[in-house]
């Protein structure tokens, strides 16, 4: 099994709802139902997202010893995307147009040629593959996602819902403040709390005075800049 990363980036999610017991058959069945499914031989552009175990990138097996680590569950989300590379499409399209020896081709015909190229080339095109590490912390109802990408976060949220029927809420200043162990007065104040500014108008004025005192020659040396055509003539 590949070692867990020593450092990196992560975001967290609160789990809303209850996860099945991670030791139970139900938990492993739920994972297996949402395991990654290959799109290697797909003939159209598509994306496949699903769970895999760290030691098995195919998504076939979820062995207890692989994914249960002490109080944690270590998983990966595999995201495959099959898309015809634009450069290959251009090469095949140029060849098709050359074969028609300069005949005028309508937009509809071009579209049909493109579809034909996709049908022929996509089954031979390998999808791009990416893995995102995920750690479930069941006793804290938390998910750690080792990516700061919003797209990965959205995929994780969808997959958690499909797999375990739970919603997840990203840990951010709002969700943390709503759950913080503060008293009722503070919780009520949160509702009407608005951003503060460190700029104090009185202090700003006094600071301007100080800057002027510190450099008295500034006013006399620097002429105001103008973009007035009359003035620059």
């Amino acid at each position: 099994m590949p070692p867990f990363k020593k450092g990196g980036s992560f975001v967290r999610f609160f789990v809303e709802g209850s996860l099945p017991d991670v030791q139970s058959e139900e938990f492993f069945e739920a994972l297996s139902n949402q395991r990654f499914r290959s799109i290697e031989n797909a003939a159209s552009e598509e994306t496949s997202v699903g769970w895999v175990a760290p030691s098995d990138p195919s998504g076939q097996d979820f062995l207890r010893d692989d994914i249960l680590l002490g109080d944690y569950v270590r998983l990966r989300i595999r995201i495959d995307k099959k898309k015809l590379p634009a450069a290959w499409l251009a090469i095949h399209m140029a060849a098709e147009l050359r074969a028609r020896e300069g005949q005028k081709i309508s937009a509809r015909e071009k579209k049909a040629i493109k579809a034909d190229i996709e049908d022929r080339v996509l089954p031979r095109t390998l999808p791009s593959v990416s893995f995102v590490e995920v750690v479930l912390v069941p006793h804290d109802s938390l998910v750690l996602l080792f990516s700061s990408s919003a797209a990965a976060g959205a995929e994780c949220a969808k997959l958690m819902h499909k797999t375990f029927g739970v919603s997840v809420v990203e840990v951010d200043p709002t969700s943390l403040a709503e759950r913080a162990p503060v008293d009722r007065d503070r919780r009520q104040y949160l509702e009407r709390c608005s951003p503060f500014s460190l700029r104090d108008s009185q202090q700003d004025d006094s600071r301007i005075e100080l800057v002027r005192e510190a450099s008295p020659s500034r006013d006399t040396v620097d002429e105001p800049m103008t973009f007035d055509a009359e003035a620059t003539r």
Partner: protein
Amino acid sequence: MTDRTEHAFLGEEFLTWLWYRSETGRATFTLRDRTEVGVSLDDFLCIGGSEDETEQTLRRGLPTRSSEATAALASGKRLVKARLILAAQHDEWTLTLDGPRFACASVRRNSAEEATDSPEARDIERIESFVRVGELLDGIYTIFLEDRLQESFSTSTLSEMRSWVAERANIGSR
């Protein structure tokens, strides 16, 4: 349904408050579980958070001491992202905290891992390290909220923070 970005500004305020606390020598916090955490700002700051949405990035050296940082604070900007050093018990981490998202980037544990021959024990220790970083940040954020979410905040802490900014600006103009 709650708008998730509704209180995103609290993340910027939290980082700016941490900056103020670290420069005024009050950046050691006792969390609810009695853990003592020390925080300092490292060599990366991203300042913005005002209405014009312009952001300024300062890196390397001592960005917190730069005149650009002072000018940005004096113009009403807040800290959007910062590289932080967290120290608790025998552990130390550096990380970049994105205030509005509370996302941790480039997290690195500076203290040595415990020597073990078991890959499982090593992986558990690494996962626990990430979980711990989250817990420490949440604990400090709660202390910030206890200060921030009270009517007297503007006449107490905010007033002191404004004096801190004004003092920085005065020193810079001398």
